[in-house]
């Protein structure tokens, strides 16, 4: 791959991702409205698509306010971390054969490491805001994300065992005959649950919990700094959906009448839609319920899954 091609891919991926994340503002609001018997934004542009532009412009022109009681530099740093870490995760995702920014052979580990960094944005944002609601949100966020990271990592180990590789491209290739969702259904479900918790979306939006903590860790943020958290959340959804597609649903694989990239995008949007549907339908568990559910139930299941998968993998090779 030549350097120009590489730069083209990097810029292309960045451009598309940021646009998808922004476009999700519209997708989510329209889909939610559809499921909630309303219209949603339908004024700006055809079908209201330009709401994205309007929202972004609004955020840009809002006062970029830093509360006098906040820890200024940390306060500014926090929203940058969330976008940065999520965007870095996308580096390892193979969108189609040849379209991957960095074909790392430790792809999964890189993804896990980057998504762990995301917790810093919540903790630092909540701490630097010097606001009690933000602090409570940050505390909740920290314990939730640390807990669910464990299961997220463990749930992927089954896939790694079966494919024998940490490289996401190899994992996709290993699903040529059978998607891993069939052989690793438990792993898929747990990864999905952990993914919701990682992106702190409803029903697991406990660090924000609008009706309890108002906006939680980003209560003091406004303007484009809030916009960063906002975009970060949509990038997070896209990332988790992309990971689900790659790891369990055969990535770009699909019948030949559509190009591989199209298959990837179709699958991607299916899971994004699922995220939004979940938000429209489920109530939020309590913070301690979520954590104890994680440690008491999910941990046991995921370890059992690992054990059984390992045993079968050994037996098959045996």
């Amino acid at each position: 791959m030549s350097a120009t091609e590489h730069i083209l891919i990097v810029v292309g991926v960045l451009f598309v991702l940021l646009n998808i994340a922004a476009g999700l503002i519209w997708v989510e609001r329209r889909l939610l409205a559809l499921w909630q018997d309303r219209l949603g934004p339908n004024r700006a542009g055809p079908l209201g698509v330009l709401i994205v532009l309007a929202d972004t412009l609004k955020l840009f022109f809002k006062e970029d306010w830093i509360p006098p009681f906040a820890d200024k530099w940390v306060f500014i740093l926090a929203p940058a971390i969330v976008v940065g870490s999520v965007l870095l995760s996308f580096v390892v995702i193979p969108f189609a054969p040849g379209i991957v920014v960095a074909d790392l052979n430790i792809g999964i580990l890189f993804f896990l490491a980057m998504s762990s960094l995301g917790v810093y944005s919540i903790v630092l944002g909540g701490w630097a805001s010097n606001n009690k609601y933000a602090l409570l949100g940050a505390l909740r966020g920290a314990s939730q994300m640390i807990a669910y990271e464990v299961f997220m990592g463990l749930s992927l180990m089954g896939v790694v065992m079966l494919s024998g590789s940490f490289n996401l491209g190899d994992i996709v290739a290993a699903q040529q005959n059978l998607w891993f969702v069939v052989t690793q259904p438990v792993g898929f479900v747990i990864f999905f649950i952990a993914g919701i918790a990682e992106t702190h979306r409803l029903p697991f939006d406990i660090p924000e919990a609008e009706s309890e903590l108002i906006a939680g860790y980003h209560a003091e943020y406004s303007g484009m700094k809030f916009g960063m958290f906002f975009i970060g959340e949509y990038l997070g959804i896209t990332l988790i959906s992309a990971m689900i597609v790659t790891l369990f649903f055969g990535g770009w694989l699909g019948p030949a009448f559509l190009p591989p990239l199209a298959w990837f995008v179709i699958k991607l949007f299916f899971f994004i839609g699922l995220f939004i549907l979940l938000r429209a339908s489920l109530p939020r568990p309590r913070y301690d319920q979520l954590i104890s559910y994680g440690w008491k139930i999910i941990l046991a299941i995921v370890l059992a899954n690992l054990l059984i998968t390992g045993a079968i993998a050994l037996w098959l090779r045996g």
Partner: protein
Amino acid sequence: MDDADSILQQLQQQLGVGSLYQQQTVDDILTLWVSKEKIIPAIQFLKTAAAGPFKMLYDLFGIDERNRNRYNGLPMADFTVVYVLFSFEQNCFIKLKVALRGEYPSIASICSIFKNANWYEREVYDMFGIRFDGHPHLTRILMPLTWEGHPLRKEHPARATEMGPFQLRDEYQDRQQEALRFKPEDWGLLEHGDDADFMFLNIGPQHPGTHGVLRIILQLNGEDIVDAVPEIGFHHRGAEKMAERQSWHTYIPYTDRVDYLGGVMNNLAYLQSVEKLAGIELPDRALVIRVMLCELFRIASHLVWFGTFAQDLGQLSPVFYMFTDREKIFDIVEAICGGRMHPNWFRIGGVAQDLPNGWQQLVQHFVDYFPPKIREYEKMVIRNSLFKARTKGIGIYTLEEAIEWGVTGPGLRACGLEWDWRKKRPYSGYDMFEFDIPVAQHGDCFDRALVRVEEMRQSLRIVKQCLENMPAGDYKSSHPLTTPPLKKFTMQDIETLITHFLNVSWGPVIPAGEAMSCIEATKGANSYYCISDGSTAAYRVRIRTPSFPHMQMVPYISKGYTVGDLLSILGSIDFVLADIDR
């Protein structure tokens, strides 16, 4: 009135002959004047020792008697404190009145006997300046701490025009700001525990989970609630004071706005007592129209509660479905009354107009449409396991605690007591209808939700019966005191013309006396205690709302739970801020 006689005798034995004076009232509730010294033993006796004890302090309020024209042989008083107790065993109210003399009198507090007397006594202090000796925390409750004067005293101005122009000077503003500063010790809260420092979290007055301008100060250990202090009064509009300068008729729209989700249900509570005072009997059609509208509003109110409760627990969609259905009810209400949330449609002696043509189809359509919807919502919310996890075993109180704190309505029925004022003390013709009283056993948030959902079904049953059996006849009584007065009695001679003119312009003169009503409103027992001094306006109107005691109970039932649970508890109580603050 055998029960009343026996209570009277028991009390007389207890307190000594001559210490009681019985007042005749038109509402058939035993009303006794007790001397100031005897009030504690009297209440103590009624609560604990009387046969069929009066376990609930239903209401406690004051009256400024200094402008009275007609005493009718009642004890002379500058102020009166009225205690209304209720006995579930006997299904019987009793009113105890204490006459107080002097500008700023005082009386012994009954906080040690009834827990819920605390806020009531604070309110009387706030409104009248009457001090309660032995009260643990006698401060203002509805008015700002810096308020001058006591609003319900007769000398306190009722209009802004009587008060001179308002100016916001710097020192005044600083003083107000300083008064708002939160000092934990003022609220009896400690900053440090045995092994922990507490965090104080200010929920509200602007907070998405409080459904209005309510402030709750939480003392937190981590996320666990050590103590909670609700601060109310942000929604106080002086509804009781307004009654004293509005005519009996023009006060009706103000009642609409007390429990603003209950709509005409508030009119009913107020008019019940006015009609008792005036001695007006309603034609059947008027009664049934009122019942139908009230039950439609009950469904509408419960729908709002249902949707917002689900939203408090993080379920975003139900609120939209339920508000859409509420719109369907409002379509009916609009077709009948012209208004929506506050139709102001009941009148003294009936309703404003007859039902419009085609109302049957509208109601029929809703009656057919709604039952499958309730089933759907039940499946969506109540049977959701996350919902159950958030509500089961949270915010529990027992039946005894509920009665002690003055809980009525669905909150009481969720503790297993089958008590509905519509059934137990029928009013407005509710005895003509068939319906069940839903109950639940555990008294937690989940059970309160369950009871309300079932209540919607029962209300629909009542609406259906109204639809099928709407009697023919007048929609308004032909009594001369009804408002607006009937035109057909006018054009006979100069006397009838003058009477009509006066009744339209000044409003009717309601005979002197006092009466209390009690209805099963959307949130619990709602009462209007109207006192007439034989004038075109009420001498005093006391509004007993269900949300006030319910809110008072919040600290008691939220201790030991977490911040997230507090939202379940607040949602399950189903309060309306205007209903608390009036």
